[in-house]
């Protein structure tokens, strides 16, 4: 509902409410597009206005949630089209977890496990779903059960390392990642995980060594485009090392 003497601020607020209510439904997208423009104009004029920043942020947060929900729909479709492909399952778990829809995703993977109890991937998915939702005890239970089926499964081991790390048992997590690096030096995941944990422990030199390995591996494998962010992480750690030295 618009009125002729509506101020720009009232208009922005109305559009934010409309997008919040409608999301991807008819009328929602145009409210979002107009709302963004209205807030950008207002913020250019009133850059110190906290309420404007809050509302503009919230409009973007709503948009982000809807985009993640749309991404989850894409992953579900990918799973339907290629049921043997693991990757969209892990993405779906991350997306649903970001939407605070843990019960939905956990229930889905419980049902899948009940339907295919001899498939080790179902234990991996369910353990991952619990881990991503902070349910560490449940994740450990799933890992233990999966291990009864496949005692030496590398993916379950990797998830266990993350569970231990999240529980503050970082040395144990680092030891597992070390084992995984020895098993498969081409898998960068344990290097990334070790880098974060070593930095959190204040072991900056070791963390820097992990980032050097990651960057070197990517450059050697013609993947220099993905080194931007690792280089930023390395620069941050080197700055901390320089701070320690001074």
């Amino acid at each position: 509902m618009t009125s002729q003497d509506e101020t720009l601020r009232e208009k922005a607020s109305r559009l934010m409410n409309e997008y919040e209510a409608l999301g991807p439904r008819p009328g929602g997208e145009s409210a979002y597009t107009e709302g963004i423009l209205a807030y950008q104009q207002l913020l250019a004029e009133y850059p110190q206005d906290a309420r404007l920043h809050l509302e503009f942020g919230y409009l973007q947060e709503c948009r982000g949630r809807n985009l993640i929900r749309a991404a989850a729909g894409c992953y579900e479709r990918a799973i339907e089209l290629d049921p043997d492909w693991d990757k969209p399952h892990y993405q779906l778990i991350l997306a649903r977890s970001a939407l605070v829809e843990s019960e939905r995703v956990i229930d889905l993977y419980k049902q899948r496990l009940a339907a295919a109890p001899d498939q080790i991937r179902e234990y991996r998915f369910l353990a991952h779903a619990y881990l991503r939702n902070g349910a560490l005890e449940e994740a450990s239970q799933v890992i233990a059960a999966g291990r009864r089926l496949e005692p030496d499964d590398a993916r379950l081991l990797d998830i266990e390392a993350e569970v231990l790390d999240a529980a503050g048992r970082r040395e144990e997590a680092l030891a597992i990642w070390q084992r995984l690096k020895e098993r498969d030096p081409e898998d960068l995941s344990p290097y990334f995980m070790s880098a974060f944990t070593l930095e959190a422990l204040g072991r900056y030199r070791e963390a820097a060594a992990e980032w050097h390995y990651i960057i070197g591996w990517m450059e050697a494998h013609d993947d220099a485009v993905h080194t931007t962010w690792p280089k930023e992480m390395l620069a941050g750690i080197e700055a901390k090392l320089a701070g320690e030295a001074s």
Partner: protein
Amino acid sequence: MPADDLRSRMWRELLALTPDRWPAIRHAVAARIAAELLAQLDRPPPPGSRLHRERHLRAERICHREVA
């Protein structure tokens, strides 16, 4: 012969003797493992756990219209 070697050799020979039975045995064992696990997991999350808090968070969001 060390006990582990003996066990693994017996296991291999057993599998070799019953190749057609192995998938069914594995499935039956797995079904039991999964059933025990799912029964454990189906208990409600303990108060203070993240899953428990998430239920409250979701209820609060709905109350305050904070869901897009």
